């Protein structure tokens, strides 16, 4: 059995009187894990704990065989960690190269030639090689996001923690990013939080759905999608019995609900359908996820 690279046992975190995370148990192995959940579900708090930015109030956090109990443990983890925060600002006047180079120094690249080669490598990886010398303030939102991602990729980290990596990227850039992340995840544990279910469906082996600081679902993407089989149907009008329905480009309505009516045109569910069903299940009834 593969030893988990990320292990959380009974992890809790409170901000004032609000529990951002409550009794979270997780064990992750190399590969890509997607983190889904509504705003305020605790995704960012969980990622900040995994990135050693935030300490848990309770429970055990073990990353890359370190317990994070001492500063030495945290430093050892940070040497093998890449982190893309939800919002990353840049120092004024820095070019993409200069910023990533600055981060490389902080990630302990002493030798300038090796450091510069690594900076060029990651900028090339995120397709910014030609814009490396441009000031970050002149770059577009998507390009800035890729600069932020480049610093996280420095040194091919063993644990890569990404908070909404595809925000601001156009479809082509998102596809390119998926390729980069898929390559990276061959040898690393990659955790990404996102609101884009299609990114999770395209990239992730495993999906975790957080709700109110608890793990609502933890399993393979296919398992979650399979749970929605027979519960998504097309109709000419929104079905009042549906949990959610919306008009599609064809002019027909896609309905997601407890069960499709007998005469309905049932279609294959997507991860988004399954996610909506799972979210609705917290207030109505549960959905059964096949093992």
């Amino acid at each position, binding site marked *: 059995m593969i030893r988990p690279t990320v292990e959380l046992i009974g992890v809790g975190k409170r901000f004032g009187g609000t529990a951002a995370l409550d009794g979270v148990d997780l064990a992750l192995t190399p590969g890509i894990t997607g983190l889904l959940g509504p705003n305020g579900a605790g995704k960012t708090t969980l990622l900040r704990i995994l990135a050693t930015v935030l300490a848990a109030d309770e429970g055990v956090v073990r990353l890359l065989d370190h317990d994070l109990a001492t500063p030495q443990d945290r430093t050892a983890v*940070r040497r093998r960690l890449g*982190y893309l925060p939800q919002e990353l600002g840049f120092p004024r006047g820095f070019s993409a190269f200069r910023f990533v180079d600055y981060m490389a*120094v*902080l990630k302990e690249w*002493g030798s300038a030639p090796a450091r510069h080669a690594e900076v060029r*490598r990651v900028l*090339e990886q995120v397709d910014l090689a030609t814009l490396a010398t441009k000031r970050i303030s002149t770059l577009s939102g998507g390009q800035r996001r890729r600069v932020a991602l480049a610093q996280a990729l420095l040194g091919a980290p063993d644990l890569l923690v990404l908070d909404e990596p595809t925000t601001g990227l156009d479809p082509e850039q998102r596809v390119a990013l998926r390729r980069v992340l898929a390559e990276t995840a061959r040898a690393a544990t990659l955790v990404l939080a996102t609101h884009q279910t299609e990114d999770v469906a395209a990239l992730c082996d495993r999906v975790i759905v957080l709700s109110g600081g608890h793990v609502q679902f933890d399993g393979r993407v296919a398992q979650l999608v399979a749970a929605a089989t027979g519960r998504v149907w097309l109709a000419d009008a929104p079905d009042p019995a549906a949990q959610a329905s919306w008009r599609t480009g064809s002019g027909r309505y896609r309905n997601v609900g407890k069960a499709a009516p007998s005469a309905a045109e049932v279609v294959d569910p997507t991860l988004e359908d399954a996610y909506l069903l799972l979210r609705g299940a917290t207030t109505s009834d549960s959905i059964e996820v096949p093992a």
Partner: protein
Amino acid sequence: MTAVATRPRVPAPGSTLRVLAGVEARRFARHPLFLAGVATCVIPTVTAANDANSDVLGGDGFFPALLVGVVSMVVAYQLTRSTRRSAEALHAVPTAATTRTGALCLACVVPAAAGVLWLAVKLIAIHRWPPQPWMFGTFGLGDRFAILAGESVLACLGAPLLGVAAGRWLRIRGGAVLLVAGVTGWVTAGFAVALNSTGGLLATGLRLSTPFTVFLTSGKGYRSLDSWTGSPWWYLLWLVALCGLATIAALLHGATGGTRTRLLRVGALFVIVGLLAYGLAVTGGLRRTVTVHPDGTRTAAAAR
């Protein structure tokens, strides 16, 4: 073709600090405000170098202290604050916050070097175009050096160190303006008290508590010079202690555990040395302001 990913080796202790200090020093040296300050300082320095009526130990030191020192304080503050928007990512790197602050403190050698350069130019100018002896007031060779070093090197080092400390701790908009106003107000208050007195422990104490002061002022048309109270050498040591305290204050931000304890111990040592030096600076040297005339005669300064 994409290059193969590499990893840095675990660095030798201190090597990241050295590399980072180099990066921060280059940022400092290239900062437009710093370059403008240095460039502006060159003009009065060159003008005063061969000016017979120049305030040899007095007002000339104002130029590096203001144009390099105070300007560098603002630059150091800005450089320290510049990475705050990347703070979230910086918390996840192996380099500790104290190392990053330490690198910024080490980068303050850049303005200090400008101060050293100014001091060297001043000493060469004094050697090349020697002023009349009375223009040094009552101060001997050693005291002259201490006065000039305090006005230039220590002012150019201490002010940016204070800028780094303020950059780490202040969480308000316009912090740099507040810092400049606070420091200049402090120095001006000490100076104003001294100008309205001919000595006395209280006036000397207030004047020498500030991070910049002069020991010699000229009368109208350079007809006489007033040598002010206090010991220049002990004042210089007081300034060194202030520099140390500013560094400790900066490093304490984000320091935890054993590092914090060690910093507090060193800080306590600087407080003791500083208070001792300050006490000796106030009680040592001249007790009353002395006026020196061009013919070499010395008289007690008249009350202003």
